[in-house]
């Protein structure tokens, strides 16, 4: 075996990572090779030198000086540390905040006007003066009806949700509403309703 390889083995030996055979290889080599023998001794002596450096102790009063230099209150986990730890939670709350924000502005925009949305407009009647949407008896609306700043009177069938924002939902005994009936009176409820809608569509999709 070449001397260079033996030196490499010596380092493995010093890392305590040699097999019995490798240790034997080193020993048999240095029995005949003076250079390697000296190299090995020098390495071991070097380590002994470093290990026997005197252990200096921390100076007097060190702990007191550290304690005096500490901030008064231990810094609590910062807002950003929390963010780093819960990225999903942050994304979710950011989503809610932005959704709420955009819905609030949507809410204030349309606050005064009477308006509604419904499919199949031919199947409903609209009373502009009373701010009233009417689904007459015997008619069927397939889909959701949303009325804003007005009321809705259902005498016929609605295959969907009926929602009145800042208004009333009146139902006759002849009415059939397959979806949910909701009256929303405040902006927050409006936001909540929209979030529910988003959530439901996420779940059902």
């Amino acid at each position, binding site marked *: 075996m070449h001397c260079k390889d033996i030196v490499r083995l010596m*380092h493995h030996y*010093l*890392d305590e990572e040699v097999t019995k055979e490798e240790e034997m290889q080193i020993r048999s080599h240095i029995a005949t090779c003076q250079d390697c023998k000296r*190299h090995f001794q*020098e*390495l071991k*002596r*070097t*380590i002994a*030198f*470093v*290990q*026997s*450096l*005197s*252990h*200096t*102790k*921390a*100076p007097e009063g*060190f*702990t007191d*000086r*550290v*304690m005096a*230099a*500490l*901030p008064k*209150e*231990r*810094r609590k*986990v910062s807002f950003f*540390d929390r963010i780093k730890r819960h990225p999903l939670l942050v994304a979710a709350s950011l989503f809610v905040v932005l959704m709420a924000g955009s819905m609030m502005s949507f809410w204030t925009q349309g606050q005064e006007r009477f308006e509604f949305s419904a499919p199949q407009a031919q199947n409903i009647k609209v009373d502009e003066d009373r701010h009233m949407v009417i689904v007459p008896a015997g008619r069927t609306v397939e889909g959701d009806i949303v009325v804003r700043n007005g009321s809705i009177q259902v005498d016929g069938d609605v295959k969907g949700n009926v929602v009145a924002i800042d208004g009333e939902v009146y139902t006759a005994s002849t009415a059939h509403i397959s979806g949910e009936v909701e009256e929303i009176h405040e902006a927050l409820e409006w936001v909540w309703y929209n979030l529910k809608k988003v959530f439901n569509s996420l779940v059902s999709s």
Partner: protein
Amino acid sequence: MWSKLDITEQRIIQEAKNGNRDAFAELVDLYKDKVYHVSYRMVGNRQEAEDVAQETFLRVYANLDNYDPQYKFSTWIYRIASNLSIDLLRKRKKNLSIDAEISGAEGVDWHDRLADTGKGPEEEVLTDELQEEVQGAIMGLSPKYRAVMLLRYIEDLSLQEISEAVQLPISTIKTRIHRGREALRKKLRFM
């Protein structure tokens, strides 16, 4: 396996985390000599060693919440101390290269600085002269090799622990230790 000492230590750490200053003072007492010693051998003089050691504990205090108990506390604290030492050495080198008159004095400097080394009489293993030679050889290593050699042979860390402390793979640690040993051997062979 947790030893009894480790469990006591974990309890103290937990109390310090909860804001108990006395518990933190206990932690400082437990580790101050180790931290100071490794800092001292890294930077080569008492004043800067104390600065590094003190800053280490301030960092520990500020980051207790980030300490991961699956690692040994000592490994974490050595990481902070060796990083701060390396930072300081880098800054010092920059300052030296700016000031041409002092440049090249780095190697000579430690002789004077080490003159005030105070040793307990029970630890008088090497003569003062030999101590200086050995420390001089260590100071001749580049900081990243120096840190690994000190953690291995002064603090007696395993290769695995060093790998965790300096956050490098074990293979890199081995290479640095092999080269570090050879570099020191060349300097100390005629001692």
